[in-house]
């Protein structure tokens, strides 16, 4: 905890520590861990400097009351408070303001518990004239100014040499930090708007959305103020002198601390982690059904699956789009299959003899007025007993209902996989597998190759990539995207009656990917993986997969430019012992050693994804 003992640097008299702020200079410079700030209180409350970012010169906030701006120079600094002990350092500035007939009080605080993570807290209260609240909008110019910084990267953004482009995506309620680096990409700050449950309070209301919006400058957040100070912003500031990778690691560590991930470590459900390829078995088609023999072609499906490298699970699908023709519910439709439930039992037995797990889907939209999740859980339990299925696929869902959670207590190896990736904490803690589904049939959807941040934040949660309506070059891109993110796929070729198969070449690529995922499982699903690490080319993005031992890493490298790239791709962290390309079109890769620094060189075609395995000397 040495860092916590660093002294605060004050540019004003110690009298400021008293309750009454009387200093004429009205400027505060201080250091918290690795954060250096300068705040000017002369005209308003200005942030002057933040680490390497000089001349910010922006107000921290602007308050608009019923469309009238509270004028500058009006804030009265009431108190500056400092507290430093071994575990916590706090600096806060209290201010007040009379505006027309209302009275506002506010507090700006910096709280440091860890060297590289500082909370910035902004609070506000109001005593309203005649106790009638007014509409209050807040704007944060200093954030806007950070956003304007030429090196500012919104979460998941990189520079392509000319502009910021989005190459990382996230689809959960944890928002990765926005990042500003110095020109060398070494000194770096990360800004996170913690957003677990924004509706519970004012704080961060809309900030996460705003920072991901192009219209951030126009963004104003509406707050409801009472006589007590209420949190408006809680921004976490991460500091790093090792580039954006360190910011990601700090954020990842800090975020994961809140989670109870015991279920992922439960040895009973380990099989789901190796569910690399899930086959979507649409019942109504030649792929799955023999119209003459009136039976399902499960052996043929399993055989064809070998072209993809072998299916790890099969999801049987026959309820949609048939449900709703009459009152039959989703469970009754199984009874109408040939020989009732026995059809499923027979298919399950065949799958199990090939070491393939078997899922059936649950349709939450089909719950009738006389049904409940508990009644469906009972139906599921009966179905498991009769057919020995291994998993339940949660159609259209991204959470696991409590009723189903109980099933796992009775059948510990039974698994749930949802169509949507879980977004919130409880969902992520309980639902241990999902699809990474992309695509939109209604729009011109192009499969982009980028990093899925969820996959790196929670590597223990297996994702199967799918874009069901994608064909041709989009299917090629889908396979590349899976490889780039080191994740499995859903092999879905019969889309509710539309036959959209993979080509022979595509099958070979998926087979190769599956073999790699299997062989290097512990690295792909290791706890030390980082998305979008720094590369030496503006047109190259790269993810790094490794476990905590760090002796071996896999780099997924994508040339998203339109030209071939030849030369240094990556600066490597350690001395290299061995290296080899393990996926993608064979390219010439080399390791160059210069002044004890190792570089990865490659000759990479435009739009190519390769995976390289490197063993380091440790």
């Amino acid at each position, binding site marked *: 905890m040495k860092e916590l003992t660093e002294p605060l640097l004050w540019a004003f008299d110690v009298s400021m520590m008293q309750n009454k702020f009387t200093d004429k200079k009205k400027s505060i410079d201080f250091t918290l861990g690795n954060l250096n700030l300068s705040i000017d209180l002369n005209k308003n409350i200005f942030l002057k400097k933040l680490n390497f970012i000089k001349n910010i010169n922006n107000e921290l906030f602007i308050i608009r009351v019923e469309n009238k701006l509270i004028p500058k120079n009006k804030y009265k600094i009431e108190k500056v408070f400092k507290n430093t002990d071994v575990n916590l350092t706090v600096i806060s500035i209290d201010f007040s303001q009379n505006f027309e007939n209302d009275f506002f009080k506010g507090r700006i605080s910096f709280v440091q518990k860890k060297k590289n993570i500082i909370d910035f807290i902004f609070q506000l209260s109001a005593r309203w004239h005649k106790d009638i609240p007014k509409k209050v909008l807040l704007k944060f110019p200093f954030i806007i100014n950070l956003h304007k910084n030429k090196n500012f990267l919104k979460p998941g953004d990189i520079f392509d040499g000319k502009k910021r482009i989005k190459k990382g995506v996230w689809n959960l309620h944890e928002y990765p930090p926005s990042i500003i680096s110095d020109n060398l990409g070494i000194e770096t700050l990360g800004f996170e708007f913690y957003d677990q449950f924004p509706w519970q309070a004012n704080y961060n209301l809309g900030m996460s959305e705003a920072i991901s919006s192009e219209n951030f400058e126009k963004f104003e957040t509406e707050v409801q103020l009472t006589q007590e100070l209420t949190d408006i912003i809680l921004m976490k500031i991460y500091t790093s002198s090792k580039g954006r990778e360190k910011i990601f690691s700090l954020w990842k560590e800090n975020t994961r601390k809140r989670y109870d991930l015991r279920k992922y470590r439960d040895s009973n459900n380990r099989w789901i982690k190796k569910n690399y390829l899930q086959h979507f078995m649409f019942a109504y088609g030649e792929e799955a059904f023999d119209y003459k023999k009136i039976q399902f072609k499960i052996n043929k499906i399993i055989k064809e699956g070998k072209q993809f490298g072998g299916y790890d699970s099969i999801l049987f699908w026959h309820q949609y789009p*048939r449900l709703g*023709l009459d009152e039959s519910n989703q469970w009754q439709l199984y009874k109408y299959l040939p020989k009732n439930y026995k059809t499923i039992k027979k298919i399950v037995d065949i799958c199990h003899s090939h070491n393939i797990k078997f899922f059936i889907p649950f349709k939450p939209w089909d719950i009738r007025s006389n049904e409940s999740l508990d009644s469906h859980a009972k139906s599921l339990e009966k179905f498991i007993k009769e057919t020995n299925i291994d998993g339940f696929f949660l159609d259209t869902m991204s959470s696991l209902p409590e009723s189903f959670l109980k099933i796992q207590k009775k059948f510990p190896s039974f698994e749930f996989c949802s169509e949507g990736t879980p977004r919130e904490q409880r969902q992520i803690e309980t639902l241990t597998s999902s699809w990474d589904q992309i695509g939109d*049939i209604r729009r011109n959807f192009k499969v982009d190759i980028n990093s899925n941040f969820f996959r790196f934040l929670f590597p223990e949660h297996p994702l199967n990539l799918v874009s069901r309506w994608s064909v041709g070059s989009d299917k090629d891109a889908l396979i590349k995207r899976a490889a780039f993110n080191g994740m499995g796929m859903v092999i879905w070729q019969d889309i509710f009656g539309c036959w959209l198969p993979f080509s022979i070449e595509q099958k070979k690529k998926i087979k190769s990917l599956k073999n790699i995922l299997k062989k290097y499982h512990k690295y792909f699903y290791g706890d030390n993986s980082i998305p979008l690490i720094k590369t030496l080319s503006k047109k190259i993005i790269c993810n790094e997969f490794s476990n905590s031992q760090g002796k071996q890493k896999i780099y997924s490298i994508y040339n998203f430019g339109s030209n071939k790239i030849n030369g240094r791709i990556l600066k490597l962290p350690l001395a290299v012992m061995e290296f080899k390309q393990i996926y993608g079109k064979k390219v010439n890769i080399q390791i160059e050693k210069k002044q004890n620094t190792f570089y990865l060189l490659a000759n990479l075609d435009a739009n190519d994804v390769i995976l390289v395995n490197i063993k380091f000397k440790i």
Partner: protein
Amino acid sequence: MKSFVNKKIFIESNEYTYRVEHLTLEGTCSTDHGPRNVKIKNLLVDKYPVTNQQYYFFLKKTGYQPRDSQRFLEHKPNKKIFNLPVVFVSQNDAIAYAKWVGGRLPTDEEWQYIAAGPKYLDWPWGNKFNPLLCNHDGNKLVPVNTHRKGESWCGCVDMAGNCWEWTAGIHDDGNHQFALLRGGSYFYAHDHWHVGGGARKNNYHWKLQILNEGINRAATLGFRCVYDAK
């Protein structure tokens, strides 16, 4: 229950422009939805969907037994429901009956002409939806002659609502087999992912993907016959 005669109505040959809307949420049904010119030959058509009584009579006379009887007449027709449309019949069961009475199932194009007529009506009774003229969102089937005021231009009743009706033919796109259903039914499931229920417009068909007969039969699915005429 008082029985009645399911009389046949003559349709004179004509040409019309076929255009159908396919409203399944995802995918297509790989048929030509038009607009295209269609020729309708002289036809006789059942005024009502085939009733339980008619089907019961057929069974009694022929001893018909489907090869796969899963869910066949699962509603167990009895005299109390004789005037309700027969349901829980597959397309094969419907064809067997139609053959026995000397008819056949209408094609998808014929069905639309019988419902919409030369004036291209949206609904059998006109261009404005009227839930009182059909069994649109009820909780059960009703006798086929309940909504006589909702008859089509040629006098056919129950063309919208009450029960879906099989049309002729199994369509095959090379990878899937399916049939086209017409008219909608009394059952109107609550969610947009369900089959769009209730009474359906004259120019709407729904693709029923074929599987085994147990799946092909449904509590809302019946038929009516047409007969080639001179």
